[in-house]
């Protein structure tokens, strides 16, 4: 067969992951994925959509069609600030914010979160801090973040930090809880648990539609 120039611009069905949508709908909050009518209310309301590579509406369409790779490596979910504006106004009750969370988790799990954003790093630093101390210190968190992603920026922000510190608004020393072992036991028992609904729950949600 002669090589046709446009071949790579077409999306072939074989490149898609038809199970991706189901993966998302099985997560609490993802059940209404198929109710979306692509009206774009979410994108219009989203204060961050101008900065996203795909608007939230488009992400929903892509999840449904099985564009797993594109969705998980897109910046969209990392820009979501969880303001829930889309979720409360969606005319079909699609919980878009929860779907954004779901794609964040899937991206981290699959190790495809985009490198140029600090958000996954922030999340993980935060995670570590809380897991060991039970509380987080914003100051330490931000410092670590800058050091890990962009040390030069840390310098730029130093003035702000100093001012905050001088007014008693920035603690670098980490606060911690008393009963750390209690927390550790609690979190440990959930090490392998993932938030996926049982088949029965999924079936009921389907009926409710």
């Amino acid at each position, binding site marked *: 067969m002669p090589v046709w120039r446009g071949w790579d611009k077409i999306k072939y069905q074989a490149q898609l992951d038809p199970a991706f949508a189901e993966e998302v709908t099985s997560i609490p909050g993802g059940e209404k994925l198929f109710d979306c009518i692509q*009206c*774009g209310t979410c994108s*219009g309301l989203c204060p961050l*959509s101008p900065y996203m590579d795909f*608007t939230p*509406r488009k992400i929903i369409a892509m999840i449904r069609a099985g564009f797993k790779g594109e969705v998980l490596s897109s910046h969209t979910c990392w820009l979501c600030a969880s303001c829930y504006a889309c979720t409360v*106004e969606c*005319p079909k009750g699609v919980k878009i914010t929860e779907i954004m969370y779901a794609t964040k988790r899937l991206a981290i799990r699959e190790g495809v979160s985009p490198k140029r954003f600090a958000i996954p790093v922030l999340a993980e630093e935060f995670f570590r801090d809380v897991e060991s101390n039970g509380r987080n210190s914003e100051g330490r968190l931000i410092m670590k973040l800058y050091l890990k992603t962009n040390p030069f920026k840390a310098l730029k922000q130093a003035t702000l930090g100093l001012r905050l510190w001088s007014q008693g608004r920035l603690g670098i020393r980490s606060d911690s809880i008393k009963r750390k072992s209690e927390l550790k036991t609690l979190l440990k028992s959930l090490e392998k648990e993932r938030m996926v609904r049982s088949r029965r729950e999924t079936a009921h949600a389907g009926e409710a539609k």
Partner: protein
Amino acid sequence: MSTPENKTNGTPRIGVYVCHCGINIAAKVNVAECVEFARSLPYVTVAREYKFICSDPGQELIQQDIRDGKIDRVVVASCSPLMHEATFRKATLAGGQNPFFFQMANIREHVSWVTFDKEMATLKAKALIAGAVMRVARHKPLEKTRVPVNPDVLIVGGGIAGIHAALTIADSGKKVYLVEKEPTIGGHMAKFDKTFPTLDCAACILTPKMSAVRSHPNIILWSYSEVSQVDGYVGNFKVKVRRKPRYVDEELCVGCYECIEKCIFKKAKFEDEFNIGLSQRKPIYIPFPQATPLVALIDPETCTEFRTGKCKKTCVDACERKAIDFQQKEEIKEIDVGAIILATGFKIFDATRIPRYGYGKYPNVFTSLEIERLVNASGPTGGEVRLKDGGKPNSVGIIHCVGSRDINTNRYCSRLCCMASLKLAHLIKERTGAEVYNFYIDIRAAGKGYEEFYDKLLKEGVHFIRGRVAEVSDWTMTADEEGKLVIRAEDTLIGVVRRIPVDMVVLAVGLEPSADADNIRRMFNISCSYEGWFLERHPKLAPVSTFTDGISLAGACQGPKDIPDSVAQAGAAAAEALALIDKGFVELEPNTAFVQDEFCSGCCTCVALCPYSAISFSADNNRASVNGALCKGCGTCVAACPSGALQQNLFTDEQIFEEIRGVMNYV
């Protein structure tokens, strides 16, 4: 109905007919197994299966078995009795047996369509068949009673649907009472300037019909009136109509406007309901120049005489015909009718329920109905599209689906807003030359000539942006947005969020059931859908009938409808009413209650329970008795009778007991 020969002496011989209903039943229920099972049941002498028992050959199977003397009672296991009970009763009769020796088992709606597991479905079907068999074995032959039908018709609601139905029936020589709650008939259509897709003038096609109603010898028009009570049943309804006082004698007033001119209020200053507050009226007014009847009325809320009793009453002096009557009282009219058509219409969605579109906050956000008045030549601006400050808009945004297709407000599509928006877009562009932007989710232009109209607008240069508007606001990002309303929406076909500054926003508000729909529904004893629209008997095959015989629906009270559909449905409702009247009689279900004298102790528990006063007590023989003509067959008295003397035809204790035994004991 002739009485068939009673062939029920001795042990019942029951025929069971299990329907495949194509694959509707057969795909889930093992029909052959059900037939086999039916054969094992007591009294069953014949059990058969067939593709479609409701078809002629299917019915013939039943009739032949009766004629052959194989059976004397019939059970059909198929769809809901609400669907085909009448069909099979007729078939039983045609076979030569009393039609009430028949019982249906609903194995489609209640089994095959709602059960996932095949085995469980078959099991449930068997149980229902057994119930029906055991029950029908206890059936008794019954007779339907025939009652004459009153030939007069009541139509509630004088919008285009009510008007059309009234004229159709009146033209056939029947008498019609048309009751309208507003001071004039015409409904929403009277407010429009043009109609889609033909752009013919609404007034030009509506007002001749309105005056035809006024002058028709067979139509009694009661405007400014409401139905207050409905009793009786199909063919014989008794209705009370409350006529609100207009304080102007309808017979004397000629609509000359003299009283209005001479009212002590020199300037009109009260919100004009007809123009939705876009203009003002006086306390004495005529809603609009083509109002029918063309009779003035006084609003006691604003009239000085009613408020203080100290008005100079210049209106009274101005009226040469002495039509003004401050003493006028509400009047209750009682009428008897045989059929009723409800055409009570709709109300528009309250746009303040979606705060992010700014209706009520920003003066230049209008509803589509308000724009209808603005573009109307006889409207408050004489047909000029004007902003609140009187200026001309250079850019207008029309937002579709306001309050529709949204689980937070109404889930349904209001069906006509797309076309109404296109029409307004055309008119606004024509009148002002403004840039017009339509924000839509989907364009639904499925009527005759509608798609062509859409094509026309595309050619006219009206902008179409596929995206539901996120917000209308006055915060600005660029200089050209200053002082404008900014519409923010994703242009979903491009995948980019756009901000479009406009001078005027039009909200294409959806339709909702009218505010008093719930009262009306209860008064007329009909059901409504989840959203509150009146429920038709069958969405496809009986779209204008209701579950209450003798009451039909026309127009948007049944669901959002545009003018062509409303008129078509009004015609259908009129035909239904005429068919009933022309037949001249109705047959009533024989499921009435009766007293077995020998058991009645005369305790009178039943007498007070009957909502229709159908039970009377005779002190002479210390017995209660039921008037079959008044009894509607609910069975409440039967359940309460402490001695078991009361029974209900078709629902005797014995029959229900047997049905319970049947559904429980055989599978």
